[in-house]
């Protein structure tokens, strides 16, 4: 009896960590398994029997794939605008001196330190007061707003760790400011910008609370899932959820492989 206890004591961190991991992964496994379910009622919460129906025609549910396309469209535009604006701010913050730095820093920090529901509600009061038509554009405006700060943080971290001598070297070699920026600065900052863009895309694509307040009758994918939790959850939701999970893992693994190969190639060079 003593031996297993001793083993448990020595490996307590590993056991506890793996239990936490199981807690994190369990819902994804449930989503995967229940994408093969054939529920009897309107809700897909209890296991009935195995079926491939949902996988054969994932867009068979009315309006679901339309909402998915809309979410992708909004996330794409929000990512583009937030990444450009956020990158400009990050460069200004790291590279230049200017007035009101403190105020600008808190304006960037505050959206991240505020419960989403507060931003959602206050933005709605603005739109109501302006008499704006709630829909695609109000959602897009809101998404750009809350993604912006996250892009700034991601890009800033990268630009701050950049060696300024590389740009000096480029100038010494008679590169003009534009050339220096395009061929030296931008490539070095690219991983930070890419990280910011990916974060913005994920945040926008999965956003519910701000969208819920400002979408009017526009239905994004999270709004569709929310509605279906009231009306009845189609199995196809789980198919989409599982497919997104699979695509994301593939992208991450591919990215790891490519960067690993690049590092090895760089190491081989004399």
């Amino acid at each position: 009896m003593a031996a297993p206890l001793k083993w448990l004591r020595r490996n307590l961190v590993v056991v506890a960590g793996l239990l936490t991991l199981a807690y994190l992964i369990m819902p994804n496994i449930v989503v995967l398994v229940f994408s093969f379910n054939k529920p009897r009622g309107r809700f897909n919460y209890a296991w009935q029997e195995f079926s491939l129906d949902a996988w054969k025609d994932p867009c068979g549910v009315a309006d679901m794939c339309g909402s998915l396309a809309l979410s992708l469209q909004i996330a794409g535009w929000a990512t583009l605008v937030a990444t450009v604006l956020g990158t400009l701010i990050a460069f200004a913050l790291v590279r230049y001196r200017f007035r009101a730095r403190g105020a600008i820093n808190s304006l960037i920090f505050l959206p991240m330190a505020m419960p989403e529901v507060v931003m959602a509600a206050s933005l709605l009061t603005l739109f109501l007061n302006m008499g704006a038509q709630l829909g695609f554009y109000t959602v897009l405006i809101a998404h750009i707003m809350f993604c912006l700060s996250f892009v700034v943080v991601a890009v800033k971290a990268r630009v701050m760790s950049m060696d300024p001598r590389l740009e000096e070297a480029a100038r010494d070699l008679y590169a003009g400011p534009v050339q220096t920026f395009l061929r030296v600065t931008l490539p070095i900052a690219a991983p930070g910008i890419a990280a910011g863009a990916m974060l913005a895309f994920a945040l926008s694509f999965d956003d519910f609370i701000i969208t819920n307040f400002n979408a009017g009758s526009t239905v994004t994918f999270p709004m569709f899932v929310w509605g279906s939790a009231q009306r009845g959850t189609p199995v196809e939701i789980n198919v989409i959820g599982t497919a997104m999970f699979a695509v994301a893992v593939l992208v991450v693994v591919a990215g790891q492989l490519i960067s690993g190969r690049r590092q090895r190639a760089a190491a081989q060079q004399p």
Partner: protein
Amino acid sequence: MSTSTLTEAPPPVPQPQSPEQPVRRTVPTRRRLVPYLLLLPGILWLVVFFALPLVYQASTSVQTGSLEEGFEVTWHFQTYWEALQEYYPQFIRSLLYAGTATVLCLLLGYPLAYLIAFKAGRWRNLLLVLVIAPFFTSFLIRTLAWKTILADGGAVVGALDALHVLDVTNWLGWTEGNRVLATPMAVVTGLTYNFLPFMILPLYTSLERIDGKLHEAAKDLYASPATTFRKVTFPLSMPGVVSGTLLTFIPASGDYVNAELLGSTDTKMVGNVIQSQFLRVLDYPTAAALSFILMAIVLLMVTVYIRRSGTEDLL
């Protein structure tokens, strides 16, 4: 002459006067404008769509009127008092649930972050991917999955019942009868689950930065593993603890998704009230006042917490 002088910068030579003088004077002014031009579009966006809405919300909260006749600013501050009187249980519940979820996230997340940082070896990247990967399935779908996991008569509830955990939680008022769904425990489970990665990632980042030699030094000085953790590892991971708890508590305090999907009418949080007042009841002044109070409470707590933990530079 040593070689090092060759790489040093030559002494400044006074520049000969040239006809370029006027051009030089304009360049600095242009350069001084550059940061403002870079900042302008993004900051303008935040001013118009983040700061200005807060002003509108503040003004809405002191308006009176009705939807048909329109609202007018009457400096009716009583709305705040009435809103607090009516909805203080939801406020207390929000802070209680979010606080509990934050503590649970720290207790659950720390071992996993520690495992990834120090013990995972070549499995490190795989474990990190597994922590981040759930993000890519819409969080609403994953929250709905908890309805299946915690279902009445399911394996989890059965196990908790057999281990007499439910007896304890019933006594504490966290669960009722043989149910976990639609109880405070279900809501806190969902909140903890939803924000756990936001705790693990900052913890991992700060743990990973710790120099392994410090652990060796502690060992050499006859510190037990427990003492090493208490005196070396944990203090050095404080920046991660602080930002992790903030990233968990702030969104959890305003959340209404978990309370709506996993809870019952007795587990409504302040987010649920704001949502229904704004989108269904259309009582804008009350909703705005509630939202403003929530913002004030959270910002106050965050400020005090950051001051106390002395990690202001982490922002």
